[in-house]
């Protein structure tokens, strides 16, 4: 993309941010704010997953374990040692990042579906251990105690503070990804994704890059998990279930894997649909929103295998607005 192209994309991003900043001034219904908060949370997870899965090409289907690790770390630090979740969040991020790097290190020899399988097995092992671990509340999980509502405790009345904190955190994670994507490090990640042997040959230390990607991805995932724990105020080992790992991946796949805007776009599409269906059908059809997810996923893979971003870039007005280029496949067709 040219420099002008980047500026235009930046302009689109800024306008979106402005709209999101203004939303609470016009919509005060707590439920709508809740939908936005969950949207920010899901988008954070999807962007974080995209560092390892999209940029580096290592499909992890066990990220829910790192999310839960962040949630548990920040919560336990608050309950046992009265450490503010702001520090707990960072501690949880580092803990999950380091753990992920250690356990994924031996798995880097595995490629494609085998790596995905190994990550599922790790997540299930963690779930099994947490379910039987006295200190973390076993299968019942932990209900966060009613502490004073303050910044120190990350506990507020009303949804507005959570809204802006979530938006701010998403901004940081998204911004980091956007900078990473066009940095030297990011090009290294992409190089590893495209061809490991060639990367090796041109002097990229493949294992080092995979470790870095794993650390960053798991750390951001855990930070998002800590935010979730402080907002929902209840955590349980079942947060590590394979289904949640898949829900982390879905927005990235549907939006456009490996792209900057894809996971965000995917989250903006999926979350409102899911919340709407949960409200409309929740009592009648409990799994309704997941059926919708599955159908959207299958249709996208069949019709637009590169995701919604690819579709968006195919639209003329969007290209003129954002300066994006046609996808390679589309360009060849024309």
């Amino acid at each position, binding site marked *: 993309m040219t420099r002008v192209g980047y500026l235009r994309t930046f302009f689109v991003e800024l306008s979106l941010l402005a709209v999101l900043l203004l939303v609470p001034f016009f919509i005060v219904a707590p439920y709508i704010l809740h939908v936005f908060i969950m949207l920010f949370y899901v988008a954070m997870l999807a962007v974080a997953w995209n560092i390892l899965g999209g940029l580096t090409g290592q499909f992890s289907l066990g990220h829910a374990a790192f999310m839960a690790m962040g949630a548990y770390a920040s919560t336990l630090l608050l309950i046992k040692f009265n450490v503010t979740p702001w520090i707990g969040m960072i501690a949880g991020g580092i803990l999950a990042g380091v753990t992920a790097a250690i356990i994924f290190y031996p798995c880097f020899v595995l490629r494609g579906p085998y790596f995905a*399988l190994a990550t599922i097995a790790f997540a299930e092992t963690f779930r099994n251990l947490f379910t039987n671990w006295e200190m973390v509340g076993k299968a019942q999980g932990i209900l966060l105690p009613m502490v004073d509502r303050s910044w120190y405790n990350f506990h507020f009345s009303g949804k507005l503070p959570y809204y802006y904190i979530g938006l701010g955190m998403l901004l940081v994670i998204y911004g980091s990804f956007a900078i990473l994507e066009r940095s030297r490090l990011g090009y290294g990640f992409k190089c590893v994704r495209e061809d490991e042997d060639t990367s090796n040959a041109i002097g990229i230390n493949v294992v080092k890059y995979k470790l870095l990607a794993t650390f960053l991805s798991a750390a951001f995932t855990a930070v998002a998990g800590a935010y979730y724990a402080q907002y929902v105020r209840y955590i349980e080992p079942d947060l590590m279930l394979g289904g949640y790992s898949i829900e982390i991946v879905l927005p990235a796949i549907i939006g456009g894997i490996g792209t900057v805007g894809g996971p965000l776009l995917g989250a903006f599409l999926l979350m409102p649909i899911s919340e709407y269906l949960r409200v409309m059908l929740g009592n009648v059809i409990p799994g309704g929103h997941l059926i919708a997810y599955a159908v959207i*996923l299958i249709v996208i893979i069949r019709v637009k295998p590169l995701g919604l971003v690819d579709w968006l870039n195919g639209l003329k007005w969007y290209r003129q607005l954002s300066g994006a280029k046609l996808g390679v496949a589309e360009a060849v067709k024309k």
Partner: protein
Amino acid sequence: MSGVVVQVVINGILVGGFYALMGMGLNVIFGVMKIVNFCQGELLMVGMYLTYLFTSTLGLDPYLSLPLVAIIMMCLGAVIQHGLITPLLGAANDSNLIFMTVGLMMLMQNLALVLFKSDYRTVQTGYSLKNIHLLGQVVSLPKLISFGVLIFVTFLLYAFLMKSETGKRIRATSQNPIGARLVGININRMYILSYAIGAALAGIAGTLLLPFYYVFPMVGATFTLRAFVVVVLGGLGSIKGAFVGGIVLGLLETMGAFVVGPQFKDSVVFLTFLAILILRQHLVSRAR
């Protein structure tokens, strides 16, 4: 003490038979198309619900519904393969294949949740609670019948793949799709057939499981992972290996539960799986 060990071993072998059947289904699909089918356990779940429906509405004995379930599952498998998976084969990145089967997994799980709610269901037959004595131990009759049928199905599959004309075509396709096409084999038809066989094997496992196990929408998840463990233990693409792998996994699980306590048996299974998966890959890359 030794009585307990014998009991553990018998249970391990009986459970292992199911893992073997699941692993073989997965293996046929992987061996021919090199795709990893994440919805294998959900196919088993569909098989279980079909059996449940036949038994509860038509009053059919679960074992008699076996051929019906197998045929329905073959059709379902053929439709999935032809409509959704074949079009993705040969694309540059295989990630979409993974997520297609993941999508199918979500779809089947949640459709089952909508249709049957999350209740645990099982079928009661006259012999459900009967036990017989074997090697001085008490073994439940339906488990033993199922194991017998399962061995029979394994032999049928093996004979089909090794001796029949169609079986040879399937094996040829799995060894070299381009070469198979050159000698006049319709490889798309072989793809459909192998997915249908894989789905039927999962359905048969479901039918055989129902007389002494319960069915609920999420039942597949445990079996999918264990089917993968079997395949990794026994070697990809090998039927004999899958059978041995299944029995070994069953033994590992019951022994592990006996040694470290039943609540940690999942950890034992998955950590062993990871160790084998990683070690094998290291050995393969060293050999190269």
